[in-house]
């Protein structure tokens, strides 16, 4: 079924379908699909994507009973299980969680970043069927773990998550996407980091082969806010990680790091976009990937510095290792700079594992396979060792060992 048909058939089931103004906005978005606004050749959001899979699919979603749970662990951290893009409503002195309700309909299309010319974000706006809001209250120190699940086979979830981190708070959020169900999960996450807040965001992905995850995150940083994102992608299915950062006020900074470990015929598309619209901000974008078998990956990084954003520091780095002759990697590290007092750079490398290093190890009696594994793990070892959270470290280590064991 194509997108127009899906929309027309399920009109009543989408979120906010009762509001006429929302419907108007949706119709505007729909024209993007009908007049083929998306330039399939040059649009970054479509590059290296199985178009057939996302231009025509079977829509399936039920607003069934909420199976989501939120609980507090002994150490004071929160565990949230979100099922099909929904959460259990919850409120205490530290955080507040609620599912998207009528009250939020105004926010829905009121987002400047919706004009990103991104196919999947437009699709999310059009077919939105679920979502939740989390608010971390002022000056709190909170640890949250969210497990994102889909309860039924062939579900197509289009969800939007709003996370507001209020002034002076410190948050550690672990987002887990591990699902064995065949499904399409399109998530658009909007994070607002207020003044002096500190946000550490870890995203771990390990989905099964027929599970497609499209994750778009968008962060708005206020004065002296600090946002760190670490993405680890071990999925067998298609994963898209696009991130947009807006450094709105002075002295804010973002650090975006991504790691993808691909095998078989897997595809992963990645993008980071940082917009410096104020002075004295810092950004860092670093992605590393290992590609085995006939896997494919793209990485677009982009630093945009407005003319007012003097004293900017923006760095980009992308490194890819191709383990097999059928692997494919495309990277496009872009700088767009309109201010003069800046320090911006990017570096990008693609290549095989250093042959000299393999030779060195083999001459010391280590088998070729073991040597490759050793060098692959050393490739990301530095970043792994910098993980402070024990829970995350153990989880990543376990997944990495499993990935390495599959290298032949």
């Amino acid at each position, binding site marked *: 079924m194509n997108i127009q048909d899906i929309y027309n058939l399920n009109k009543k089931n989408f979120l906010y379908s009762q509001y006429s103004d929302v419907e108007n906005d949706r119709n505007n978005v729909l024209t993007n699909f009908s007049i083929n606004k998306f330039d399939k050749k*040059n649009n970054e959001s479509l590059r290296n994507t199985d178009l057939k899979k996302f231009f025509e699919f079977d829509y399936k979603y039920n607003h069934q009973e909420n199976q989501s749970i939120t609980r507090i662990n002994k150490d004071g951290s929160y565990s949230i299980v979100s099922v099909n893009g929904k959460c259990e409503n919850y409120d205490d002195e530290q955080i507040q969680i609620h599912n998207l309700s009528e009250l939020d309909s105004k926010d829905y299309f009121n987002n400047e970043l919706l004009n990103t010319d991104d196919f999947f974000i437009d699709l999310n706006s059009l077919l939105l069927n679920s979502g939740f809001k989390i608010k971390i209250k002022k000056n709190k120190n909170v640890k949250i773990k969210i497990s994102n699940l889909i309860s039924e086979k062939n579900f197509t979830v289009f969800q939007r998550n709003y996370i507001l981190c209020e002034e002076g708070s410190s948050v550690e959020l672990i987002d887990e996407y591990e699902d064995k169900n065949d499904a399409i999960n399109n998530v658009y996450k909007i994070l607002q980091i207020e003044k002096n807040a500190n946000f550490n965001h870890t995203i771990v992905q390990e989905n099964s082969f027929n599970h497609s995850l499209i994750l778009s995150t968008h962060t708005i940083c206020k004065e002296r806010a600090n946002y760190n994102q670490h993405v680890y992608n071990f999925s067998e299915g298609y994963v898209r990680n696009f991130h947009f950062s807006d450094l709105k006020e002075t002295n804010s900074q973002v650090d975006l790091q991504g790691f993808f470990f691909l095998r078989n015929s897997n595809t992963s598309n990645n993008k980071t976009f940082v917009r410096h619209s104020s002075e004295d901000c810092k950004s860092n974008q670093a992605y590393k990937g290992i590609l085995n078998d006939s896997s494919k990956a793209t990485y677009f990084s982009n630093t945009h510095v407005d*003319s007012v954003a*003097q004293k900017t520091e923006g760095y980009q780095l992308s490194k*890819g290792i*191709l*383990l*097999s*002759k059928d*692997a*494919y*990697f*495309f*990277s*496009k*590290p*872009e*700088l*767009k*700079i*309109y*201010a*003069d*007092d*800046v*320090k*911006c*750079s*990017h*570096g*990008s*490398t*693609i*290549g*095989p594992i250093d042959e000299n290093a393999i030779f060195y190890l083999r001459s010391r009696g280590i088998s070729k396979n073991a040597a490759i594994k050793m060098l692959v793990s050393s490739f990301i070892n530095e970043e792994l060792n910098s993980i402070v959270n024990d829970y995350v470290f153990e989880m990543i280590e376990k997944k990495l060992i499993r990935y390495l064991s599959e290298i032949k």
Partner: protein
Amino acid sequence: MFVDTETLDTLNNFSKNKYKYGFVTEIDSDKPKKGLDEDTVKFISLKKKEPKWMLDWRLNSFSKWKEMKEPQWANLSFPKIDYQDIYYYSAPKGFDKKPKDLSEVDPKLIETYNKLGIPLEEQKVLAGVAVDVVFDSVSVATTYKGELEKLGIIFCSIGEAVQKHPDLVKKYLGSVIPPGDHSFSALNSAVFTDGSFVYIPKNVKCPMELSTYFRINSEDTGQFERTLIIADEGSYVSYLEGCTAPRRDSNQLHAANVELIALKDAEIKYSTVQNWYPGDEEGKGGIYNFVTKRGLCAGENSKISWTQVETGSAITWKYPSCILKGDNSIGEFYSVAITNNYQQADTGTKMTHIGKNTKSKIISKGISLGHSQNTYRGDVSFSKKADKARNYTQCDSLLVGNKCGAHTVPYIESKNNTAIIEHEASTSKINEDQLYYCRQRGLNHEEAVSLIVNGFCKQVLQELPMEFAVEAQKLVSISLEGSVG
């Protein structure tokens, strides 16, 4: 604050910097009617007394152009080009009969060259430079022809090559840049008027730098040059191209095509200093420069090296590229691009690795001043067969003032797991410490900046042949004069 106000002052001073080569020689031009249709193409072909196959090739290109749109992806903005408001052929009058020697050449023309500092008479005496001068669109005089002929080297205008060496032209014209590649290549293929043709026979090392000076002179005349250089097995040639254009108010379109073919063990070095009229302080006028340059390393161990210094043109759209088809072939690209006032440049290169052990190196330096926009756009791709291929890319940008922009857009693609790509880029302003150091030693602000910028570009400038190195360094200084120093 001290430096800030000074920078502002010098920036303001800069706007008073006038274009040095802005003079016009009054020579009657022989033009067809304005506009582009099949008749224009036929007119050009007739004027150039071309055989039928050439006319057919042009008409075929023209029909392709009619179907095509201009490429949109470049980071440039300019008013839509009205192709019907341009003259497509302009040759100085009385040139239907070619002059036998310099005394028959219009003295005013000679005067123009003297102003530019290329006295033709002296060139004959001067060490090792043969000049095929293109004034507007027809070759005026070719020197050193005899000496080159002895070695079997063919160095003539493309029009002459069509007459005298049709086999070579038929075989190679359009083989690297097919007319249907994009709209500017189709346009050029349909209406090209002149340009150079070079053929270096097997195992011949061309003893001198071959050089052409282009000069746009007639108002509203687009120049559509076509250059074809073929280096046969084991040969070597270094080719120089330099341009200056007189001051004009309305925009002039320039869409040249340059094709290089290096066969087995051959090497081609192509150097350009481009200084077309960039428009005035308000961004009015100036040349639109849409150039397609592409080299094919067809044979094993061949090498193509592009060096360019781009300081002129209101719009620069130029990507000298290499197709590294032969095993062990090498492609190089060295570029300095300086943009001022309201100039816009979108320039870079494309390295396509197809053969095994192919290597490429890209060094690009961009300097933006005033309200200009300077973009580096590069594409490096490794095909599946490009085993052990290697690329190294470095592109640095320097920004002066906060009204200009510097952008870097590299596309990096690898389909081979033995190939290695390294890319690095940086953007910054002129280092305050370096500036302070220079000023401390008695240089004024302007001199200091000029010195630092020249150092910034040195890696590229040193790749230029001796004949060009002086001119290029002067150009860099002139481009900065009064602006930043």
